[in-house]
């Protein structure tokens, strides 16, 4: 389920956590890494990707949405 965070690119800035309108993403402060905590609550608004300055967010639609 979208989004997918590239751990190598994520700098732990927390913008995607703050800007997600649905509270899907939570920053792991210890690891300084954005975690998609509630993937099945994502509504694919794209805000996390729009505002990630590191280009660490990729939107991947699940087969359930693409294939039905």
């Amino acid at each position, binding site marked *: 389920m979208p989004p997918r965070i590239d751990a190598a690119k994520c700098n732990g800035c927390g913008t995607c956590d703050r800007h997600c309108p649905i509270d899907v993403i939570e920053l792991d402060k210890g690891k300084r890494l954005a975690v998609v905590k509630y993937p099945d609550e994502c509504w694919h608004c*794209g805000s996390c990707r729009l505002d990630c300055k590191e280009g660490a967010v990729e939107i991947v639609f699940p087969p359930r949405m693409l294939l039905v």
Partner: protein
Amino acid sequence: MSSLEQYGKVFETDVLVVGGGLAGVNAAIAAAENGAKVTIVDKAAIERSGSMGGGIDHFAAYLETGEQWDTRQAYLAYAGKIARGAVNLRVIDKIYCGELPAAIERLARIGNPLTQPDGTYYRTQSLGQPGPYMINFNGKHLKPRLAKEARRTGCRVLEKVAVTDLLTSDGAVSGVIGFNIRTGEVIVIRAKALVLSTGNTNRLFENPTGLPFNTWQCPADTGAAQSMAFRAGAAVANMEYLRLTVVPKGFSAAGLNALTGMGGKLLNALGEEFMPRYHPAGNKAPRFKLVEGVLFENQSGRGPVFMDCRHLSREDLEHLNRTLGYDKDTLPDFIRQKGVDLSKDLLELMVSEGMQSGPSEVCASGIKIDEECASTLPAVYAAGDCADQTRCCSPTIAGGYAAGKGAAKYAQSVAELRPVDEEQIVNAKERVFAPLKREEGLSHREFEDILRKILWENLGVVRTDGSIRNALSKLDKLEAYKDRLVARNLHELMRVNEAQEMLQVGRLSAVASLHRKETRFGVFHRRVDYPETDDANFCGQIVLQKRQGEVKVTFNPLTYEIPEA
């Protein structure tokens, strides 16, 4: 320490905006510009929260260019035609027409003009309009720009706070209570006046993809304002209407207007352009007619239904692809990942999940508002998709501003903050946090799934007196399970609260529907036991209000002469 601080963190303000979405940020800017101290509270961050946080692409407006359809009169006549029985022309004349020029100017001023780079307007026609009212624009960063302006005008912003209850004192609203969804801290905000703007109600009906958050409008909008205001005694109206739209198969994404506005055609499985059989405007018919067309083609064995853009010029296709991404940032990704190329392939469509959101683009459903955006509760204003007369981009921007102005004026007339009833705080805290203390019970997900199934089976596109009563009796039983809801953490606690708001809205919708013994707006209120539209008896609003614990139902007739300019 004031005595209230024993319960949590306490804030005081002149105007409190509950829900910093599109209506809320405009309301906040208005109130601040009119001299009020303003606080915005939102369960997310106002930079991207709400339905259009990720972008928006069309702004409906008449521009008085001299064309016959491009006037205030023509717009009001169109509104009266497509939303007859639901829209109050006097109200939208004041808050939409009255605020429209300033809204267009404001967007330009904050750096998000509605014009193309060459300074012209790109306008398209769709959804039953008499002319090209839809101004196409790049609204990908409109929300962060409005948020920046709200902060610049001095508004205080409380983010990640879910508001759960209105606090009242002597019948007037004195503030709200909520909690921080990350820390669990209780938040009490005292205000002289409030603007409620938490959007429409989503996740309410069964989702055709089985994914409840795969919704057309923002799934964090779950009817908080409608539910809180009703409980506090405010009148709500237009609640009976089911809203549906047509979306790409598998993804409940905005974009229909962009597709049909650019000339996209709906085809059935036989390759026929079927919409002219349902409405003279064909693919540019009002939304409820497009839904009806897709639904009935499928039911008649002529489905699936597709969007055909193959005939568009390369230039128009480029514009379309850009616009689709402005409206729903990830829709171009979806189309690509599905392996569809709009220049060569058909895009399969489906009817979306249902929601509470009013029957048309020109008015909505929810808190009943007057010409100043005031609700029937003193000190409470409302705008956007949670109010009965404003929705969509331009009416919400205009209406939000009108509500903020009204609230600022009201706040100025009040000398002091109203007292807060501590017992209400204690009760609200007890109710809201109880699910965290329960060891076992019903998850919000299970509760919501039951609600969605009851509503879709009984209050969907086929309604009868029997099905509505069946829904109500099942909702009564579900109500009893509210005391068994469990939450394992604060995120789930927010969801549990949302589920209860949705139940309240579902119930109001059923009660209103029972009283509307007619069909109006096709499948948006289809009483198969009363299949005709009955203007003699039902051209107006079903209004619901809580009185001594009961729901009082009244009828507010509406007439359609165009108000004097």
